[in-house]
């Protein structure tokens, strides 16, 4: 039974496997505990040691951040912020 399931996963089209991995990667990124650097030199080092990405990956990341921003604004408008902000259209 397990073998059948394993073979089933292997027999899936490769495109699906890639998409699954990318989705998982995005979720893991968000779940990762936040690290807060306070030294600008350390922040600079982190910025300059980023993995290279393809244009497509960069585009999808921009979309992800855009969606997060939109949700953030919608939550603010609904007044569902946990730390209390007053809405005022800019």
């Amino acid at each position: 039974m397990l073998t059948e399931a394993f073979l089933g996963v292997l027999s899936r089209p490769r495109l699906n496997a890639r998409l699954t991995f990318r989705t998982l990667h995005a979720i893991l990124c968000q779940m990762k505990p936040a690290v807060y650097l306070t030294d600008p030199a350390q922040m600079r080092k982190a910025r300059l040691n980023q993995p290279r990405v393809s244009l497509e990956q960069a585009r999808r990341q921009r979309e992800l951040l855009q969606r997060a921003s939109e949700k953030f604004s919608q939550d603010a408008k609904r007044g569902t912020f946990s730390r209390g902000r007053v809405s005022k259209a800019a």
Partner: protein
Amino acid sequence: MAEDGERYFKATFPGKFGFSVILVPGGLPDLTEATPLEYMERLLLQNTIFGDTVLLEGVAQEAGGTVIVTSQPHITGGAVSQEEIFDFMDRLWFRPLQCLQLGRPGSLAFYRDLDEVTAFDAHPGNFVKDTEGIVLPIDLILLRAGDELQKALAPFLAG
């Protein structure tokens, strides 16, 4: 984005240089269009405070006005939460400006008295949590508050 996948190129709209903050009649802070010098100071603060390496790539003169072209390293990662924005800014001694929202609806504002720097338009679109979990701001509106702006911001600082 550059073909090597490492840096973004960013051009201002012709004749526009992002936003700054002024006091409107009544003494309240509000967004206004920034001058080229204010835009450059904002980028300099981004480099100085947040360890960024924004580079001035060039200045072009187009029909609609001057365009400033800069580049900035791409940060690979995902979105931050509101709590992570608060925690990051807190560790750098930025205090939240309560009930003051300039920019995108819900965006957060902060002030740091040790160097009189204010940060506006803090929201998940202007931060990235990289693949190691490191929280990095990428495009906040930063400026040094003069005496008048400091006085205007004081009531918004949390007790």
